């Protein structure tokens, strides 16, 4: 969806984001409050992966906040920080502009969680993050 310089895209409501999430991922539990959407879901990025329970919290127009709940995220020997996470271990899935509040979380952010988990599992063994990305300091 090309973004026009002149036409401001309409932000998707929490109800719309919830509907789109439940349509694409019927097993997700999505609750919409007055100001916040809460999604609990399970993702298994490959058949040789664990099944991860995550929580996604979203308030318009902020960045969705994604935490992996279980199994607990681990570190490979010799590493002391996870890759591509914020200080509170929320996943850093994209840079500015990759997702906007007028775009569905279901078709952007959720697939990126799966992809993050797949590269995380490889990183535990190879000790290399092979999914690309930036590692700036002072993110967000």
């Amino acid at each position, binding site marked *: 969806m090309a973004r026009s310089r002149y036409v401001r895209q309409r932000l998707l409501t929490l109800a719309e984001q919830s509907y789109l999430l439940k349509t694409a991922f019927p097993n997700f539990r999505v609750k919409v409050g007055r100001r916040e959407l809460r999604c609990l879901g399970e993702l298994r990025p490959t058949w040789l992966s664990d099944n991860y329970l995550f929580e996604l919290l979203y308030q318009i127009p902020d960045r969705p906040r994604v935490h992996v709940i279980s199994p607990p995220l681990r570190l490979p020997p010799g590493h002391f920080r996870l890759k591509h996470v914020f200080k509170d271990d929320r996943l850093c899935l994209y840079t500015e502009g990759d997702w906007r509040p007028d775009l569905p979380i279901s078709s952007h952010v959720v697939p990126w969680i799966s992809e993050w988990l797949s590269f995380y599992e*490889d990183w535990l063994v190879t000790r290399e993050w092979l999914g690309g990305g930036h590692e700036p300091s002072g993110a967000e």
Partner: protein
Amino acid sequence: MAVAPAVYFPQGFAAALDQLLLQVCEELQLSTSTYERAVARYGALNKLLESAESPFRYFRPDIYPQGSMALGTTVAPIKGPRDLDFVLQLSRDHSGVDPMALIRSLYEFLRQNGTYRSMTTLKNRCVRIEYADDFYMDVLPACLNGAAGGTCIKVPDCTVRGWRDSNPKGYIDWFKKRSRMIFVGRMLDKAAPIPDQEAVAEKEILQLVVQLSKRWRDLCYANIDPGLAPISIVLTTLAAETYRGERSVSQALTSMLGGVVELIDQSHRRGERHLHLCNPSNVAEDLTERWDSNPAAYGAFERGIRDFHCRWSQLIARQGNVNTELVELFGEPVAAVLKKRAEQRHGARIDGKLGVSSSGLITSLAGAAAPLRPHTFYGEE
């Protein structure tokens, strides 16, 4: 033939594990260039042994690969050069031949040759030719065993200063028959297992099981005492004996480990000091004779196999992320495969070819619940 690095999406844990194990075996396989060098080198050696100055020229010397090279079960060593085994077979019955004179004459002939002089050493049953690069050749001189018939041969053994029984060609035939209980073609881009027989490299499940069990052996006993490790022909024979035609390498390995543990238990119940195995193509060749005089090696084998069986069963039952367990069992090639796959996945995502299913499985775009759109992982160090 190179296989395009396409991302392939097997369905189910077992199929995904099989795909990973196949790729691990490709990593372990003799490379095409090493394979071709080995063929050229044993060809050159054969010519020398047929030449006018060769003491073997009247006995129609024939060099042929035996062991892992002939079986298509080569495994990269953890460190150091690969060893490739060849038989130098003379068309003469062993009776009337002094075994020590035979092996010494091969050794001395090569030591007199300008090319091989500095590369040749004498071993218990073979003459070793060490090349400067990545492998050495062990050449076993052999004479025919007319009494046993068929492809049975006798090979000199310096320890007993006499003959030993063997039948490498018969063993290869037996192994092939066992492995082709179910034939599963598999494209491999790295090597052709058997000379001039298969234009396209193909692997059978049993060959993969042997490769994996040998790799486990190399890793497991490197940390204990490599001298206690079971020899390759024992693992190969046990794998072939316990193979039941499974179409899946992971299932075949499960069967092998369960079967070997059962054979060990049966041997205990019979009151034997150790499991006994003979060459199925020549029962006079006792493959487990070294356990007669080395009970510590048998103890290490038994403990090792039971531990492998236990860990493998847990891995199969886990049905989840088994990367760490696979690295513990098979080592660095697993990490190398995971790295290649991750790079391919990343490339396919950049090309817009991937999506995720409703359960989060990364899959091809067709049939995905949502596409994997362009994005850049971000984050703090």
